[in-house]
């Protein structure tokens, strides 16, 4: 049986993001629900979040982020062989959104599929994309994390949950490389915690057992971060930045302490973006690029975790 021409390695070629224009502050939330800026900030570090307009859909936001990633990587849409849409908040399961993203971007009939691994979806998608490139199944892959929670999945009377989430999309193009610029993935799941973040049977909104989620994160995420570095053969001192899933500033800071890379920038996009699930890592990463906090060639630790429970992380070299 013949095999396709493979690439020895894969890399990120370009990044893009989309943030809805409407910003909702904690003070604005406190006008309608029993909460306060102090309450939210002390528990989550979140000060504001972007909220989708009615015409900002999971697909439309993914298209905007994808378009920017294509431009950043100087790729035309028809050079994309596969589109992976990481999302858990698309309002309907059928059809998936990836083919519509591909169509709206002008990609020429690529393979397109949705990937639901909740908050860790983008990092899962990055590993799938790298594997496709290395196996010769694709030369260029577009991976997008896009989420719109606020319109369909949030109960605005559930103050423990509604203050956490925001909307947005982040994207990366992945292509062949002669060097290992996307490091080995560390990923896994623990279904015993599936009920900790879920839309329960008969319900319509996301409910969270915040204490058990936080306990899981505080005991598992820091060792995972060190494991990602070990698998990549990268010392913490070699990292230019650390981009944990932006769920809660206290968890982000715990990851940063555990990695103990004193020179690395730590992404804190959660402060004015909230938790955007699968979009959180590429949104935070794109922001570091835009603000010139990382440069081409820099090594960055990505680590995402969330509902499932599921997790995935890798060290990547910046394009």
């Amino acid at each position, binding site marked *: 049986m013949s095999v396709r021409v493979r690439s020895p390695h894969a890399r990120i070629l370009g990044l893009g993001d989309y943030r809805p224009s409407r910003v909702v502050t904690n003070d604005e939330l406190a006008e309608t629900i029993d909460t306060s800026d102090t309450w939210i900030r002390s528990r989550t570090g979140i000060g504001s979040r972007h909220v989708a307009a009615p015409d900002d859909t999971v697909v439309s936001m993914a298209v905007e982020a994808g378009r920017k990633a294509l431009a950043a990587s100087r790729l035309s849409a028809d050079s994309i062989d596969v589109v992976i849409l990481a999302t858990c908040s698309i309002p309907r399961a059928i059809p998936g959104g990836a083919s519509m993203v591909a169509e709206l971007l002008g990609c020429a009939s690529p393979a397109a599929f949705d990937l639901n691994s909740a908050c860790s979806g983008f990092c899962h998608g990055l590993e799938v994309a790298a594997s496709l490139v290395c196996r010769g199944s694709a030369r260029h892959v577009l991976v997008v994390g896009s989420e719109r929670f606020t319109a369909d999945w949030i109960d605005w009377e559930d103050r423990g949950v509604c203050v956490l989430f925001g909307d947005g999309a982040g994207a990366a193009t992945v292509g062949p490389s002669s060097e290992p610029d996307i490091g080995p993935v560390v990923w896994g799941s623990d279904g015993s915690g599936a009920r900790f973040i879920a839309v329960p049977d008969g319900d319509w909104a996301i409910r969270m057992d915040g204490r058990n989620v*936080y306990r899981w994160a*505080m005991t598992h995420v820091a060792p995972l971060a060190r494991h990602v570095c070990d698998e990549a053969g990268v010392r913490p001192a070699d990292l230019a930045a650390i981009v944990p899933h932006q769920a809660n500033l*206290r968890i982000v800071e715990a990851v940063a302490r555990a990695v103990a890379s004193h020179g690395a920038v730590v992404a804190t996009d959660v402060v004015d973006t909230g938790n955007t699930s699968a979009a959180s890592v590429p949104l935070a990463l794109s922001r570091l690029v835009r603000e010139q906090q990382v440069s081409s060639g820099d090594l960055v630790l990505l680590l995402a975790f969330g509902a499932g429970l599921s997790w995935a992380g890798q060290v990547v070299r910046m394009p």
Partner: protein
Amino acid sequence: MSTNDALILLRSVVREIAQVDIDGLARTTTFTELDIDSLTVVEITTAMEESLGAKIPADVFAELATIGELEEQVVRMAGGPEAAMSPST
């Protein structure tokens, strides 16, 4: 670790993490009354679980509300089979 030592450790951990002295407080005192938020409760219990080599069941953990309930779990962990097997005992 004896249950008495575990309770002494609990007081020390709460003092360190939450800057609150629970010595002599009524067992019905809630974390809310002490201005200890839910994430800080997690940090306290996680520290105790690591020290005692045992875990509080998730369902119980989600509902812990008072100092007495936390002490009860600490006593259980200190006297449980996991604790008996830990190197610190």
